[in-house]
C-alpha cells in the first residue's frame, strides 16, 4: 500500500581498505519508524550518513525519496539535505552564539527565508516556549535535544534521521524525547530512521535491524 521511501541495492561504503558497510539491501516504506542497532563500528552511522546525503556510497544503488543519490552533485546533495531530511545528532550540535529560536531559524535560512514566528511556534510545539531566548549553554541536555528536534522538523522533512539522539540523555529525558518524537510523527507523518544501541529506545520503532561489522545480521518487527 505505502510507497517505498528508501531503497538500497548492494550498498557499500569503503574508507580506504576498511569496509564500513558491506553490500546492504534495505527497503523502508514511507511512514515507518526504523531502528538500527549494532555495536560501535558496526556501520550504522555510515548508513545514516549515506541516507542523509552527507556521504556518498562507494558502490551499489541508493534511492531516497525517488532520488538517485549517486547521480547528485555536491550542490544537489545540499539541496536534498535541506528539502528532504532532518537530522538529530547525539551531541546536539547547536550553534553556541545563537539563541534557541535563532538556531531553528538557521535551518530556515538555508532552506528558504528565516521566519521567526514560525520558529517560535516550532519551539512551543516541543515544549520550549519559555526558553526561546536562551543560548544552548543555558539549556539542559534534554532541552538542547528538543531544540534539535524543532530544528530538524522545521522544514517539514519527509525523512527524520536520528544518530543516537538519546545517547547523552538520562532516562527521564530520553523518555520525554521519544514521546515527543512519537507525537510529532503522528502529526507530520515523516519516516524515522534512528540509530541507537539502547534496546529500550529501539523498541519505540516499528522495526529494528541489527548491523554487525557492516552486515545486516537480523531484523525484527516490534509487536503492537
Amino acid at each position, binding site marked *: 500500500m505505502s510507497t517505498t521511501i528508501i531503497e538500497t541495492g548492494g550498498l557499500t561504503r569503503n574508507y580506504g581498505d576498511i569496509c564500513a558497510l558491506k553490500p546492504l539491501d534495505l527497503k523502508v516504506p514511507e511512514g515507518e519508524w526504523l531502528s538500527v542497532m549494532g555495536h560501535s563500528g558496526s556501520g550504522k552511522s555510515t548508513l545514516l*550518513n549515506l541516507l*542523509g546525503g*552527507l*556521504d556518498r556510497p562507494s558502490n551499489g544503488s541508493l534511492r531516497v525519496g525517488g532520488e538517485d543519490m549517486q547521480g547528485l552533485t*555536491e*550542490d544537489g546533495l*545540499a*539541496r536534498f*539535505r*535541506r*528539502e528532504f531530511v532532518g*537530522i538529530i*545528532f547525539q551531541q546536539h*550540535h547547536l*550553534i*553556541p*552564539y*545563537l539563541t534557541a529560536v*535563532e538556531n531553528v*531559524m*538557521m*535551518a530556515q*535560512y*538555508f*532552506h528558504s*527565508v*528565516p*521566519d*521567526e514566528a514560525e520558529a517560535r511556534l516550532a519551539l512551543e510545539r516541543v515544549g520550549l516556549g519559555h526558553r526561546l531566548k536562551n543560548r544552548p549553554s543555558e539549556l539542559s541536555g534534554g532541552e538542547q535535544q528538543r531544540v534539535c528536534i524543532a*530544528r530538524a522538523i522545521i*522544514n517539514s522533512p519527509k525523512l527524520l534521521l536520528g544518530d543516537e539522539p538519546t545517547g547523552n540523555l538520562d532516562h527521564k529525558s530520553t523518555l520525554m524525547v521519544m514521546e515527543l518524537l512519537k507525537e510529532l510523527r503522528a502529526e507530520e507523518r515523516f519516516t524515522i530512521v534512528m540509530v541507537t544501541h539502547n534496546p529500550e529506545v529501539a523498541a519505540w520503532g516499528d522495526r529494528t535491524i541489527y548491523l554487525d561489522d557492516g552486515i545486516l545480521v537480523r531484523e525484527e518487527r516490534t509487536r503492537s
Partner: protein
Amino acid sequence: MTKRRWLVYLVARALAHRKGRTVLLLAVLAMASSLATALGIVSISMGKRVAEEVRKYGANLVIIPDSARLDVGSGGLNFGAVTEPAYLNQQEVEGALARSGLKPGRSFHLRGSLHWKDADILVEGVNFDEIRQLFPWWQIKGGWPAAGEAVVGSDMAARLGLKGGETLELAGPGQSVRVRVSGIVSSGGEEDGLFFLSLPELQKVLGLEGKLTTVRLLVTAEGESLKKRAAALQPLLPKAKVSEVRQIARTSEGLLAKVKLLMVLVTAVVLISAGSSVTGTMSTTVLERGKEIGLMKAMGGGRWEVLLIFSAEAIMLGLFGGGAGYLLGSAVAQFITRAVFATSADFIPWFACVSLGVSLFLALLGSVGPLISVFRLDPVRSLRGE
C-alpha cells in the same frame, strides 16, 4: 526577516561571540590601513605643498649684492647683521647678462623705505612689464599701474586702510612723489606686505639712480644644468652673488622623499605581517568552528552559501577595520606633517575609499586559505570531531 539581514545579524553575532579575536583582527586591519592612508595623505598633501612652494618662486635664479650681509663683531660679541645697505649696479648686471649669452626672463628690484604720514613703509621698485611676465600669478584687484601710479600689497593695504584710486604722497630722503594707487595685489607671498612703485621713480625718489637690490631671473633649465648656468654667470658679476631659488624647496623635497621611503618600508612590513596574522587568526577560527561549518552543511547549507557566511565575516571585519583605519590614518598624517613639516595635512575624504580598499583586500586575501578549507570541509568528518 530577509535573508540578507539575517546574514548580517548572524555575522555580527559570530564576531561578537569571539570578542578577543575580533578586536585583534580589527586592530591589525585598522593599523595596516591607517598606515597606508597616512602615507598617502602625507605624500599627496606635502607633494602639493612643495610644488606650490616651488611655483611661488617663478624665478629660479636670484642675484644679490655680495656685501649685502656683513656680520659685525667677532666671536662672542655679535652686534648684528645687515647694517650696510649694498646695491647692484643696473648697468653692470645688464652688461653681464648680455655677455653671458643667457636670455632669461628677468626682473629688477630695488627695495627701500619711504615716509608716509607718520610711518615708514617698505617700497619696492619694479618694472611692471617684467613682473607681468615673471610672476603671472599676481592677482591685481583694480588695474595694472600706468605712469604715476602704484600698486599696494593686500596685507599692507589692509593695514594702512588704502583703497584703489587713492592718491598719496610719499616722502623720500631727498624729494617726495605723489602716486595714485591703481590696484591691490595679492600673491600669497611676501609681495602682500609691500608697496610697489615703478623702478625709475623709486630710484629717483631715493636718489639711487641705476642701483638695484635684487635681480630675479627665470632661466629655462633645471637641476644640474641650472647650477651650471649659475656658476657661469657668477664670474661675470664679481660684486654679486648668484644663487638658485630652488635650493629652498629642495630641502623640503628631500625630507619628504625620505619620510615617504620610510613610510613605504614600514607600510610594506606592516601589510605583510598584518596579512599573515589575519591568515593565522582566520585559520584558527575556522579550525575551531569546524563543527559549526559541518553542521551548517549537514543542515542543508550549500558550499557557496557557507562560504558566503564566512566571507561576509571577513568583509565586515575589513569594512570596520578600514573605517577605523581612515580615522586613525588621518590623525597620523596630521601628526607627521605637524612634527616633520610644521604644516597641517589636507583632509582628503576620498582617501576613505583607499583605506577601506586596503583593509578589505587584506581581510579577504588573508582569508583565502581558510575560506578554501571552509568550502572543502567534509561535514561527516568535522561533525565526528576529526
